[in-house]
């Protein structure tokens, strides 16, 4: 029987010849990832023996370096945990970064594998053809102990990409166009494919896959193609993996064709991305207090490069804070070496340590009541980035950078007009 991507991966991971939507399967988990906040109230310290230390990674990301003694204690517990169970893949402060970025950089996310972490944006790994998803902390604890979890095989919605992505369009714009037009995908897997996919670089695929959580998708999957193999040749040389691509006549809950050449910069209005995004060109004037570029969705090197290019030789508008958070220490280092950090700081941006920080309203740039932020991060829920009386709009790194310079939500195209 022909399979979608998720059907293929879940069948293999559960030892079945085939699986179909609605079926409950028990899968072996290839990589279970633990993050700092899971050590907050959890019973990780009571684990007698882990199932397999080589299939566990521990990444400190949400609250590092620790802003409070309580957060500092999570680090202590994490260090004790990896020592007790001989876990080599430990990304402590200094080797850290946002978990989804780190595990991709470290070659821990491979095509055909099952990856889990207690962070809802674990679906980022779908960009690398992995059945990656976030599950609750208790389930991560169970995987650590047993090496297994269960899934209800979701039906798949396929996005067939045609045309070519315009250079100024980001994965964020593609995602917001989809979320705005089609709404939520609760209990479904999303799958991307088609002739237009070759024009979508890995950084944009990662943005799209990360944000699948925002429309309630269980998984967001890309095929393993030339771009995937090129990425993996860099981060995981000499590693074997099983490309898991959809069969030509697989059955989908729906097939939706997106002509990439028609996508324009998009903005999500505060609250949700679901049926709540508009083309930037049709947005009324929105003045801003803060502009944020970062998170697992858009804190990648490519995102910082775009931002640096736009702000180069210009200044952040008076009264606006531009905060840039690289997604990992590696991204930070690359951005320093390539001069992006200097360019951003010269323009008046604050470049912070790599952390989940401002994205979840915890530290490094939370919002006051009444403030307006335009963000390239993952989520625009009310209260997400600080005060419940703040307003969070979402756009691409290019949109955020241009907005920081102009002082209202704007396109880089407007910079020439403003300067003139």
């Amino acid at each position, binding site marked *: 029987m022909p399979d979608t991507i998720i059907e293929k991966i879940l069948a293999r991971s559960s030892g079945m010849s085939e699986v179909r939507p609605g079926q409950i399967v028990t899968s072996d988990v290839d990589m279970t990832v633990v993050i700092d906040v899971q050590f*907050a*109230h959890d019973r990780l310290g009571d684990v007698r023996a882990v199932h397999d230390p080589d299939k566990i990674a521990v990444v400190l990301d949400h609250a590092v370096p620790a802003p409070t003694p309580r957060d500092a204690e999570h680090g202590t517990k994490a260090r004790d945990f990896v020592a007790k169970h001989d876990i080599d893949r430990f990304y402590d402060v200094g080797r850290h970064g946002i978990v989804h970025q780190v595990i991709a950089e470290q070659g821990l996310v491979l095509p055909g594998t099952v990856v889990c972490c207690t962070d809802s944006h674990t679906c980022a790994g779908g960009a690398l053809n992995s059945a990656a998803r976030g599950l609750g902390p208790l389930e991560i604890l169970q995987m650590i102990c047993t090496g297994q979890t269960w899934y209800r095989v979701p039906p798949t919605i396929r996005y067939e990409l045609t045309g070519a992505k315009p250079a100024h369009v980001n994965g964020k714009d593609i995602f917001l166009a989809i979320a705005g037009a089609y709404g939520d995908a609760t209990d479904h897997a999303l799958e991307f494919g088609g002739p237009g996919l070759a024009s979508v670089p890995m950084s944009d695929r990662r943005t799209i896959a990360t944000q699948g959580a925002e429309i309630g998708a269980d998984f967001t999957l890309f095929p393993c193609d030339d771009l995937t193999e090129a990425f993996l040749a860099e981060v995981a040389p000499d590693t074997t993996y099983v490309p898991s691509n959809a069969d030509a006549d697989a059955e989908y809950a729906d097939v939706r064709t997106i002509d990439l050449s028609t996508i324009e910069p998009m903005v999500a209005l505060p609250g949700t991305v679901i049926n709540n995004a508009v083309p930037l060109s049709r947005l009324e004037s929105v003045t801003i207090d803060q502009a944020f570029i970062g998170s697992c969705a858009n804190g990648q090197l490519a995102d910082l490069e775009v931002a640096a290019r736009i702000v180069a030789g210009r200044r952040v508008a008076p009264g606006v804070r531009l905060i840039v958070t690289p997604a990992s220490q590696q991204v930070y280092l690359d951005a320093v070496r390539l001069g992006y950090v200097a360019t951003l700081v010269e323009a008046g941006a604050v470049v912070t340590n790599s952390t989940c920080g401002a994205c979840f309203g915890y530290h490094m740039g939370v919002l006051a009541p009444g403030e307006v932020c335009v963000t390239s991060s993952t989520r625009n829920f009310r209260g997400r980035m600080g005060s419940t009386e703040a307003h969070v709009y979402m756009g691409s790194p290019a949109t955020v950078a241009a907005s920081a310079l102009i002082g209202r939500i704007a396109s880089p195209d407007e910079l020439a007009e403003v300067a003139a």
Partner: protein
Amino acid sequence: MTSPLRVRGRAWVFGDEINTDDMYPGFAMKLPVPEAAQHMFDATRPGWPRLVEPGDIVVAGRNFGLGSSRACAELFVHLGISCLIAEQYNSLFHRNALNYGLPALVVPMARQLIDEGDVLAVDAAAGLLRNETRGVDHQVEPLPEFVTELIEGGGLISRLEAGGYLDRVDATSTTGGKS
């Protein structure tokens, strides 16, 4: 009425797409669970946790629990909520609820069957929902057996303890969760 699958309580009715950050604000992740629970729905229903009585039931619309893996269910359990009923759940949130031992039923059209303040009696294993206030019984989709076993056994932590995977400790709060 000793099974966690057979409960009775007043209904609190919420809307569509109730998200995790509304239930469990980011700053509350810095707090111990009992304090964090007092911040549920800070933005949209300030003061709600103080109105909850043990046994109360939370009813919601579509896409209940969109967002984070943070353990909202643990906060509900702390407040004494006995059951969730929604027209549709986000799968991550739904699994969390069941793992914390909180029955979470899918009831399409729930908000047409239940008004806020109605007294409900639920048998999650049998799929029975009785709206005592309206005097109407509804047959709903029961929880599958592997889930009812999980809940009757006290949730996933109890199962891991029983399986010898965890050292037993005095019952304290569990979890974690994230953005």
